[in-house]
């Protein structure tokens, strides 16, 4: 659950009705808040709020917050170095790509990237290049976390493939922006129509263009977990209130992707959680949006049930062509041995989880 103080921190600097402490917190409370800011990745905002005198803290508390912030920034620059390595590999293989999430949002959306920590490297590659991109990283010593469900699954249906870099850091190669139905109705090729320039270490990288970056933040916040990460909600508000998001373009794109329910949920969550005072036309639209029964079912699969099996069920309807539907179902029913690992018990567990998901979905 997001606490009021965690939400207030995430809203720092925006026109929010939430307030920060005007006297230093007790030692116990402070430790909880500091831990939460570290985990929520709002430590940059906490540091800034303390430094600007908006969050009352003792000198020791301020020093502790600055130390945690410096630690998060150390991780951010190391991750950016890994990202440059991956970009070099993809360029070397002639594979187009876009920088997603953390680093791109930190540099292109926030007034200072130090306000926006992140914990992994995310890059998008075109679906038809996914297999080659995966092979390129594996050849370079990146360890794939788990084999694909069946050969061809990554490039046809997967949201992303996760790796650990040779230096032990997480790298995600994305094929699309979300799992399940919303990830499949989204036209991933649209994401390569344009780009924004991200200058990093003197180099020019291609990131998602502003509208698509905003939509990605919405997909992440609305579908990524049962409790939306407060930083993802902050990203949405930050983009809507301070950057050049073309609302007409966003809504047009979202309609084509059949993702209006995602957009509406994300925007409402951001405005309500952060208690933002300023309204914008998109917020008015989001509050009035009525998701269909089908959209509600898919949203529940992502936010309440949170099972891969249920999300897979929702995906089936979005897969075009009987051949692809069969391939998808076959991958779900009979994953390759390498995916499940050794032992017959793993098959039973896999099917058991699928059956439970199906039962829950019927009840829901």
């Amino acid at each position, binding site marked *: 659950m997001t606490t009021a103080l965690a939400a207030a921190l995430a809203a720092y600097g925006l026109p929010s009705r939430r307030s920060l402490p005007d006297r230093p917190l007790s030692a116990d409370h402070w430790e909880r808040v500091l831990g939460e800011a570290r985990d929520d990745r709002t430590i940059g905002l906490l*540091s*800034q709020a*303390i*430094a600007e005198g908006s969050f009352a803290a003792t000198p020791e508390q*301020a*020093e502790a917050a*600055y*130390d945690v*912030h*410096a*630690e998060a*920034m*150390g*991780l*951010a*620059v*190391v991750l*950016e*170095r890994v990202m440059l390595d991956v970009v070099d590999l993809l360029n070397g293989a002639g594979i187009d790509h876009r920088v997603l999430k953390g680093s791109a949002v930190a540099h292109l959306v926030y007034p*200072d*990237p*130090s306000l926006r920590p992140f914990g992994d490297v995310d890059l998008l590659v075109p679906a038809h290049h996914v297999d080659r991109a995966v092979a390129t990283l594996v050849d370079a010593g990146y360890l794939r976390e788990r084999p694909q469900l069946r050969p061809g699954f990554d490039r046809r249906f997967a949201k992303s493939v996760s790796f650990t870099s040779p*230096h*032990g*850091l997480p790298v995600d190669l994305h094929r699309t922006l979300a799992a399940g139905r919303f990830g499949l109705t989204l036209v991933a090729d649209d994401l390569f129509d344009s780009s924004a320039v991200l200058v*990093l*270490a*003197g180099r020019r990288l291609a990131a998602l263009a502003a509208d698509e970056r905003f939509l990605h933040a919405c997909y992440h916040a609305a579908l990524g977990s049962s409790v939306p990460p407060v930083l993802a909600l902050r990203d949405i508000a930050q983009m809507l209130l301070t950057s050049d998001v073309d609302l007409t373009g966003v809504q047009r794109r979202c309609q084509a992707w059949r993702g209006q329910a995602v957009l509406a949920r994300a925007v409402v969550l951001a405005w309500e959680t952060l208690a933002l005072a300023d309204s914008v036309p998109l917020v008015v639209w989001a509050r009035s949006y009525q998701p269909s029964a089908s959209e509600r079912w898919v949203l529940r699969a992502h936010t309440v049930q949170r099972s891969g099996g249920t999300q897979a069920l929702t995906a089936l309807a979005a897969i075009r062509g009987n051949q692809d539907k069969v391939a998808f179902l076959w991958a779900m029913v009979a994953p390759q041995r390498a995916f499940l690992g050794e032992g017959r018990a793993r098959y039973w567990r896999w099917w058991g989880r699928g059956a439970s998901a199906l039962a829950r979905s019927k009840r829901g």
Partner: protein
Amino acid sequence: MAGRHRRRRRSTLGVLTSRHAAALSYDAVVTSGGASRWVRDAGALWRRTPNAVVVLADGTREPFTLTGSGRALWEALGDPLDEAELCHRLAERYGTDEVVVADDVRRVITDLDRRGALHHQP
């Protein structure tokens, strides 16, 4: 461990004694005659916090932290400056004499150069 970084000893102007300042002013005068300029290496990745700057030099995997006058120096090094100009900037910022800051400037520049975080313009 990835993401961890060593904290460097604080480099604050307040710890300088007059003896240090006097001894090191000679070096500063000699260096300023050379007028070679320093600027942040474009390949360095860095972030700021309210009391520090975290830097990862090009080709390295271990970030380091600059505090106090080291942080101020890093901020100033966005423009190419020689040591005399850097001393002037820092002295102005801290409201002190250029001779007093010369030690810190020399030490931090040497350290940043050794770490590969600076670009040297003859």
